[in-house]
């Protein structure tokens, strides 16, 4: 089942009126993404998204689906709006005063930007892993236990212990830290810290995990560990990952989205994007002509 962007406009919760006074789209803003942005079994349906920082428009009419249990990679030159897009999926952009988001984001059946949507509850469903590992200056145990405690997911200490253990195991960190759970998380190596952050994100069992360049601060071995991890996690989670490494996108993702200057140029199966891209801009990028 595919859908055109125009059909998508009629989805519930689509915010049509952007605050007056913003620059109106020029004709190129109505660009239609090529390839197959929409899938049969979507976890998230994202339609006609515009994002503004003040009067600067960072995203133009982006529409895409994120499928259940798929890994979708987002690539594109620096400043093209990948992080902006990712951060609007779990409303991290709410913390930026000048940032205004319009369009519709439907997670399962719920409109993420609806008045009735509680951001705190949303972030229990959509977790995030950041570019720079950012463990709390607390113990390894407390880092992982923080989310479940915050959302009241466990009531007994033994349950919490179990959640911490399974999360660390899934993040592939358990073996390395099981004897030092009460040591500070900031004392781990960069790669371990990033896996700790992933453990922290999956401890609240989110449906979707957003990763913004999770390996950019890591060496190749640590990167390989995380890539393996992403493959394992995709059995249970839906993952959207931003990356600057095309090899990485090729290795971990099923579909790849190419952004360019705030527009979503092309979404296709990863293999197709890297072997036979549909759009010339995508081709220029993957062949290294810019970016």
């Amino acid at each position: 089942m595919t859908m055109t962007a125009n059909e998508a406009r009629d989805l519930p919760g689509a915010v049509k009126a952007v605050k007056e006074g913003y620059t109106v789209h020029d004709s190129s803003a109505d660009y239609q993404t090529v390839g197959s942005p929409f899938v049969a079994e979507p976890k998230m349906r994202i339609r006609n998204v515009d994002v503004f920082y003040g009067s600067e428009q960072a995203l133009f009419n982006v529409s895409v689906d994120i499928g259940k249990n798929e890994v979708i990679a987002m690539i594109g030159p620096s400043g093209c709006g990948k992080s902006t897009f990712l951060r609007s999926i779990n409303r991290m952009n709410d913390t930026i005063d000048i940032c205004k988001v319009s369009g519709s984001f439907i997670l399962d059946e719920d409109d993420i930007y609806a008045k009735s949507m509680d951001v705190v509850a949303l972030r229990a469903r959509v977790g995030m892993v950041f570019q720079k590992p950012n463990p709390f200056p607390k113990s390894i145990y407390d880092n992982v236990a923080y989310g479940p405690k915050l959302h009241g997911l466990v009531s007994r200490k033994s349950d919490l212990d179990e959640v911490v253990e399974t999360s660390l195991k899934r993040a592939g960190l358990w073996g390395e830290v099981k004897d030092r759970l009460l040591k500070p998380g900031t004392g781990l190596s960069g790669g371990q810290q990033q896996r700790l952050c992933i453990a922290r994100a999956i401890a609240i069992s989110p449906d979707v995990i957003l990763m913004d360049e999770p390996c950019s601060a890591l060496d190749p071995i640590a990167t390989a560990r995380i890539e393996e991890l992403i493959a394992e996690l995709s059995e249970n989670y839906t993952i959207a990952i931003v990356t600057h490494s095309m090899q990485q996108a090729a290795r971990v993702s099923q579909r790849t989205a190419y952004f360019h200057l705030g527009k979503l140029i092309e979404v296709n199966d990863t293999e197709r994007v890297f072997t036979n891209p549909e759009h010339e801009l995508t081709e220029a990028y993957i062949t290294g002509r810019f970016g």
Partner: protein
Amino acid sequence: MIEDHQKKAEQVARGLKRRYRAEKRFRFYGIMAVAFGLLAVAVLFTDIITKGSGAFRQTYIQLTVHYDPEVLDITDLRDESQVALGNFSGVIRQGLYDRFPQFSSRNDKRELNKMISSGEGFELRDRLVENPSLLGRSETLWLVADDDIDTYFKSYGDSGGAFTGRVSETQRAVVEGLKQSGDIRLKLNTNFFTKGDSREPEQAGIWGAVVGSFFTLVITLALSFPIGVAAAIYLEEFAPRNRWTDLIEVNINNLAAVPSIIFGLLGLAIFINFFEVPRSIPVIGGLVLTLMTLPTIIITSRAAIKAVPPSIREAAIGIGASPMQVVMHHVLPLAMPGMLTGAIIGMAQALGETAPLLMIGMVAFIVDIPSGPASPATVLPVQIFLWADSPERAFVEKTSAAIMVLLAFLILMNTTAIWLRKRLERRW
């Protein structure tokens, strides 16, 4: 090409020399600046310590006193008015006459009367009340000498000869006599550490001012720390950035620059004239000093909050912490050392503040040790001001001694601030 290379190396070498010279020069300036600062501190401290150390010791005279009911004019110790009116200084005088029978002329007796501090009568009264069986008996005591005698006795061994000042021939002979028999001596000045202010330098103590300062600072801290931290958190974490918050920001900075005496005037106008709170009490002092320290605390707290890495905040938000939880679980614990340091530095400023307290009447002459934040009090710096203004020579050393006490507290507070910061600081 090779020549060019050499030329370049030479050029760099020449530049290097100049750079090193500049660096050396700069280091020299730096050392000079630090040395100047240290020198100033050293001069200040030696001056104060040489002047003030005398105040920690006090001349005492050993004397046998007879609690003669006739002289005292006390028949019944249970009668409070009798005890209150009892002629205890008469008892001391009689003790002196008995000790020095050779000075029997009226003039000599008058000189003798001035040997012992006039406050010691109260000392005897307290002893008698505590131990009624003393009535009609004698005991030998060390009594505090009068301030003129004290000054004279302390200067005894001075190279330029003793400072006789207002001490008469007779008194000098008496001191000589006492010295022969070992009945005059310098002892630890307990009055200085346990009593409030007094017109008699030998009876004046710093304790009243210390307690007053303590109550004032407790009020200041209890008000300014929570208010300051709450304001800082609101401004940093919750307030929208707009013209109003800009205005508030500018005014907080302005407030920090307002001369402190203005806060005193404000306190006088609002608390005392309008709300008619009694003057001279630590509550008002604390309120005024709160106004003064608030900007400092707000500014340092905001800086501490700003220093919390944004990545920690993002991590917490990303996992679903509400703004309040982000603050309580992450920002506050990480910013706390900085906030505490700011608070202690603010308190140290408040401890040394004089001008605004003069305006609200904390400059009154108060003998009693304040019993609470609502009883009249003075504070350390005001006490220094009062003593520095007193004509009696013995107050000179008291002034310096009080400065030493104040400095000791300041050093203690600043050390605590550094220790706290080192202790609580966490590294990311």
